[in-house]
């Protein structure tokens, strides 16, 4: 596969504004990838590398962002004060902003919603919608 270097500055700006992180700070040491308990694939450092290359669509559409549990191990250990967890969270948010939801809320059924903990349902949306 040939990757064409292109800069998607507006999307990157939007992500950086949403997360407060500076993607260019990352120097690709891979400490986040090494410690990720969710074994994300593509891994956090690869996702950030996609962003640095301007391959925003590839990052935002990757399946692995949905396996991030937000344990913040990567952010805690990052030597450059970048928070990969925050970036992945931002990617999720931008994905949801742009994409059509995969779960239709009213199709879940009143009974299910009534019997579930409200907080669990809401936090479930963030991961599985």
């Amino acid at each position: 596969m040939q990757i064409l270097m292109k800069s998607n500055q507006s999307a990157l700006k939007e992500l950086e504004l949403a997360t407060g992180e500076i993607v260019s700070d990352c120097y690709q040491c891979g400490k986040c990838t090494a410690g990720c308990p969710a074994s994300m694939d593509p891994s956090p450092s690869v996702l950030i590398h996609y962003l640095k290359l301007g391959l925003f669509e590839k990052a935002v559409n990757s399946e692995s962002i949905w396996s991030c549990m937000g344990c913040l191990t990567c952010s805690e250990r990052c030597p450059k004060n970048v928070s990969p967890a925050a970036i992945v969270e931002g990617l999720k948010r931008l994905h949801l902003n742009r994409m059509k939801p995969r779960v239709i809320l009213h199709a879940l059924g009143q009974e299910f919603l009534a019997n579930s903990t409200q907080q669990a349902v809401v936090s479930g949306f963030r991961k599985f919608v």
Partner: protein
Amino acid sequence: MAKIGVFVCQCGNNIARTVDTADVAEKTGELSGVAHVEDYKFMCSAPGQEMFKKAIKDNNLDGCIVSACSPKMHEATFRKAAEDAGLNPFKVEIANIREQCSWVHDDKEIATAKSKDITKMMVNRLKYNRPLERYKMPVTKRALIIGGGIAGIQAALDLANAQIPVSIVEREPSLGGNMARLSETFPTLDCSQCILTPRMVEVSNHPLISIHSYAELEKLDGYIGNFRATIRLKAKSVIEKDCTGCGECWEKCPFTVENEFDMGLSKRSVIYIPFPQAVPTVPVIDRENCPKFIKDKCGLCAKVCGQQCIDFTQQDRVIEEEFGAVIVATGFKLMPNVYKEYGGYRPPHMTPKKLTAKIRKTLPRSTAGRLVDVINGLEFERLASASGPTGGEIRRPSDGKVPETVVFIACVGSRDCNKGVEYCSKICCMYTAKHTMLYQHNVHHGKSYVFYMDIRAGGKGYEEFINRAQSENANYVRGRVSRLSKKGDKILVKGADTFTGHALEIEADMVVLATAMVPQEDAMGVAKNLGISYDQHGFFSEQHPKLMPVDSSTGGIYLAGACQGVKDIPETVAQASAAASKVMQLFSREELEREPEVAIVDEKNCMNCWDCVTVCPYNAIDRTEITNRQGQFLKWAAKVNPGLCQGCGLCNTVCRSKSIELEGYTDQQVYAQITAFEGAFV
């Protein structure tokens, strides 16, 4: 009536492009007191200076203004030329019409008007310039070296071989520093001690070098050429001149503590020399741990000593010596492992002394869930060293097994703005490559992995050395390690390979962290003591990063080695020699000349508020008693030591009775300069 000459320089086109220099010269010539004007293309050229000298002689000028570039550039040139022509150099002033006028303006009219104003202001100021004489200072031709590592040793030898007497102050009982701990050195793999110890012996035998080991510098007073050092010689409890270094005492001593020289990997007796080749070979008693001093028991060493040179009653001695120059070579230490994810124990030798005993009781290295087999670079050096705790066999600290798999992690602490230091520690790439080689040479079937981010091998033969390490079966993995955890008797290394983007796990027997090089803990204290500046990490700052890399911010104090920034051995030695040659330059003169632009006190007006004493950053102001001719006390007054005064002018501004003035910048001069300002260009 003053006879002032004004010389307007065109600086090729630099000034003439935006300033009509002929007009400036003409207008300035009309000012009162101006006797001669010139407008010339390059005043700083040889013909320009000749013209300058000739004009002074022919017109018998008593002051000169050169309207040209910044005084930083050519003030010295013209002052020298004036001196040659028989005019006091401090009667020459520069009016800066290049940096502060022609370069920053486009409009020729405005720039010309401004140039006229600047020149006029300087002319007015010059009328009040007093002829000043440079101070002459004697030089004490003795050098003090702080730190007896390789930098201190090299500087001491260079100076002593140039017939300059040298004193070395070393905190530890022996010279040698960190280099003595190393097993082999990159990129040639020659034995560190084999090249260091001959130098140490040379130092100890040199008639012009005196070694103050187990000593610390308490205070440094004075100024370039005339320092007075107060040195505390800690009590060794051994009479140095009688001791033969036979070793009877340290062999018989029944008490042991952790050996700092072996990074805590072995035990040493309480009366000890750090290592067999120690210079001087005189043991010291570690009073904090010796039962004789704690509960007045034992005293075996005194009984076995054939020379009767153990003296338990010895006290610290404080001596004062005079020096002309100081070389600071306090060296480095390794950053402690502060990473919880890397098993972050704090080795006892890196914990504050008070805590050491407590930690030794509560947290021996083999317990408390800490990863004992995670060691740092210097600990690996001791393991690999023939004189180390294992006699050169690489065995892991926990159970003494030969490690089959070793993981080396580069950039621990360095290049880490989160928990470590931001700079690159520079030597780790090289010593990690060396460690893999030492390990391969020692354990032939062993596997070694290096987790790295970038390999920085910019030195003579360095890249070749890395290639050699890689060809000798060291596996380089590009990525960082996230966590080290215990798995059975092994260490589970969770790392990543960023080329494939996958995490990977290795079960290792031992892990070596290439921790960052940081300055000594008390480096900032030393800097404050000496009055030199340091950066945010505690490394001492050089005067100019490129052109004055061995001068500290204070005259007469020079820097050598890793106390100034991370360095490998060749660079350290080069800098030490450079510092030594700077001292030789200083000592090549019988007298030092100092600029006379220092503060002077009007003793009549001084009202003893001592604000100037408080505010002076160079401790140049003292209190003095004023007496009449009969020697009766009249009053107190401030007194400036011209050797120390740097002419910063702080005392001048705080003085409430206006009794301190800065020579060359007196209130009268500055006032005259300001009142001449017409604001034509505003």
